[in-house]
């Protein structure tokens, strides 16, 4: 044993990175990315909506032409990730026949998984760039990710 450090991720990324991270993260919760569909609000349907702001996030502006919104869906529940005017990442949950509490819980699960995926992406990318080698990687049953990195 020598040093143990505990860290809380801060999401600082441009939209293309967020799109990749959200796409990779939500599958494990049964959500899939949908494109080109109207939101239920645009279709005039009655749904429950819940908006959650992701603390510790800063989405950098980019002029790559990417639309700064990504929609994921699972059995009638939709989550719309977007960047607000202040640059904070938000998720708007929509569902028919669902309570606000359920939407908030599912939204928080999505945010947690996106945060985990972002932390994984950052750590692996940055350590590899410093010539460190991933020697072992495991995903536990509770979805905890364990990585062992070697530096010579």
């Amino acid at each position, binding site marked *: *044993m*020598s*040093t*143990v*450090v*505990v*860290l*809380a*991720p*801060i*999401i600082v990324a441009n939209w293309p990175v967020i799109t990749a991270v959200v796409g990779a993260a939500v599958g494990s919760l049964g959500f899939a990315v949908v494109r080109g569909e109207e939101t239920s609000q645009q279709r005039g349907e009655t749904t429950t909506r819940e908006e959650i702001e992701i603390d*510790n996030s800063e989405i950098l502006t980019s002029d790559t032409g990417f639309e700064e919104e990504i929609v994921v869906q699972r059995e009638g529940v939709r989550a719309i990730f977007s960047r607000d005017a202040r640059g904070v990442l938000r998720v708007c949950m929509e569902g028919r026949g669902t309570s606000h509490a359920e939407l908030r819980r599912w939204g928080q699960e999505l945010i*947690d*998984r996106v*945060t*985990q995926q*972002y*932390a*994984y992406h*950052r*750590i692996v990318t*940055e*350590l590899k760039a*410093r010539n*460190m080698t991933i*020697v072992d990687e495991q995903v536990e049953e*509770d*979805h*905890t*990710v*364990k*990585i*062992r*990195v*070697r*530096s*010579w």
Partner: protein
Amino acid sequence: MAKEELEIEISPSGKVTARTLGVKGPRCLELADLLARIVGREESRTLTHEYYETERQVTDQVDLYGHR
């Protein structure tokens, strides 16, 4: 050169716990600082006995020079 390892755990909510293995002295702090810069906000840091091993050797050397 000695093998240095990092054991990193990312919880389902994204919290990161990293432990240095086989790393002695201030190099531990360098690796902890690097991870903090990569991930975000540091919540806690614990130094254990291995960190102090190299520092003890340095102190011994200083004592030797002191006798000259």
